[in-house]
C-alpha cells in the first residue's frame, strides 16, 4: 500500500494566477508557488506519492530523484503547518 496526501478539510483555498492561496482556521494566510500548487491539487487522497513525484518530474523536466526530494521537503513543511496529512492510499 502506498502513501498519499490529504488536504486538511478545515482549510479554505483558491487558486489565483496559477498559485494557491490558503487560509487556516487560525486566520493564517499561506501562499503556494506553482510547484507546490501542483502538489496541492493532487492532495485529494486518491494519488500515490510516487505518482505525484512522477508528475513533478515530467512537468518540470527534473529527475524522479530530485522530484521525490522536493516533494518530501514540501510535505514536511505542509504537515508542520497542518495544511495536509500523509496517509495510506485506499484507506478510509
Amino acid at each position, binding site marked *: 500500500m502506498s502513501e498519499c496526501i490529504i488536504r486538511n478539510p478545515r482549510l479554505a483555498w483558491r487558486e489565483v494566477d496559477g498559485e494557491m492561496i490558503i487560509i487556516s482556521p487560525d486566520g493564517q494566510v499561506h501562499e*503556494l508557488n506553482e510547484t507546490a500548487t501542483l502538489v496541492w491539487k493532487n492532495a485529494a487522497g486518491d494519488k500515490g506519492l510516487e505518482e505525484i513525484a512522477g508528475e513533478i518530474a515530467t512537468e518540470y523536466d527534473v529527475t524522479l530523484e530530485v522530484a521525490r526530494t522536493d516533494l518530501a521537503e514540501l510535505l514536511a513543511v505542509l504537515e508542520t503547518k497542518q495544511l495536509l496529512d500523509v496517509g495510506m492510499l485506499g484507506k478510509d
Partner: protein
Amino acid sequence: MAKETGRACLSVIGSAKQASRDTGFAAIRDIACVQGGLRGLVHSVNHAGGSAPLQISIGSVPLSLFIREAALHVQAVKRYSEFFQDSSNALPILLNHRKAGAPGPCEFSYTLDDATLFFGSRRAEFLGVRNEYAMDSLLRILLTVVLLPQRGFLLHAATVVRDGRAYIFAGRSGAGKSTVASLSPEGNVLTDEISLLRYSNGCWQAHGTPFWGEFRAAGSNRQFPVAGIYSLVQAGSDRVESLSAKQALRALLPCVLFFTSENDSHEALLMMLLNLIGEIPCHRLHFRRKAEFWKVIAA
C-alpha cells in the same frame, strides 16, 4: 528547455486574524473631540428599567443597541450620533444584560480582553463591556460577521471621496492612512481608519463608518461607488503600480478585519475579495506622505 522548478515552497504572507487584532482596545483612539454635536441626546435614558434602544445603521446594517448603563448610553449616543437611523428590522444588541455565560446556542462568539460577543440568528449580546472602547471593538467584530453573507467587509483603510467616487487607501498601522486623510480636502474623507465595503445596487460601495483613527471624527453615514483601491507604501517618489489578482489579494488579506475560524466563512471571504478584485482596479501607491500623491491617482 526545462521550466524553472522554483523549488516547492510555502510562504506565510500574513494573518487576517492578527490584522484584526489591531482593532483591539489599544488601537482605538481617544474620541473626546467627537464632532457632530450631541443631537443624539434626544434618545432618552430610563434609569429604572434600562434605556430606550439606540437605533443606528452602519453600512446599511440596522442595529438596535439596548444599553442599561447611563454612562455607556451617553458615550454611545456621542460616538454613533451620525449613524442614527430607525428601522423596524434592526438586529438587537443587548449590552451587559447578564453577568456571564452564553445565552444559549449561538452562531458565533468572540472574547476580546474581558468583553465577549455572542451572536445568534435573532440577536447579539455583549457581556463584560466596561467602556465605550470595548463596545466599539465588539461592534466592529459583530459587523464583520453580519456583513459577510451580505457581501460586505471591514478593511484597515482610509476612504476619500473625489468627484462622487470613493478611493480606498489600505494599509496596516503606520502605513499612512491617516496621513492620506490629512492630505485630502476636508469634508471628502469618509474614514481614516476602518473602511466598510459592500456590494449593493450592482456595484461595490464604500460606506462611512464611526470607526475613526487619528482624525477623531464622528464619521458620516454616506456611501459612494468605489473607484479604486490603493495599497499604501511609503517611498521617495509618488507612483502607482497596477496589481495582479494575486498581488491584490496578498495586499488586501492582511488588512481585512476577520474573526471567524470556520472554513465556510474563509471561503466566502476569498470569493468576495476575488470578486472585488475582479471588478475594482487595485494598485500599490508609493507615496511621499505629501499631498502631491493625488496627481498620480487616475481620475
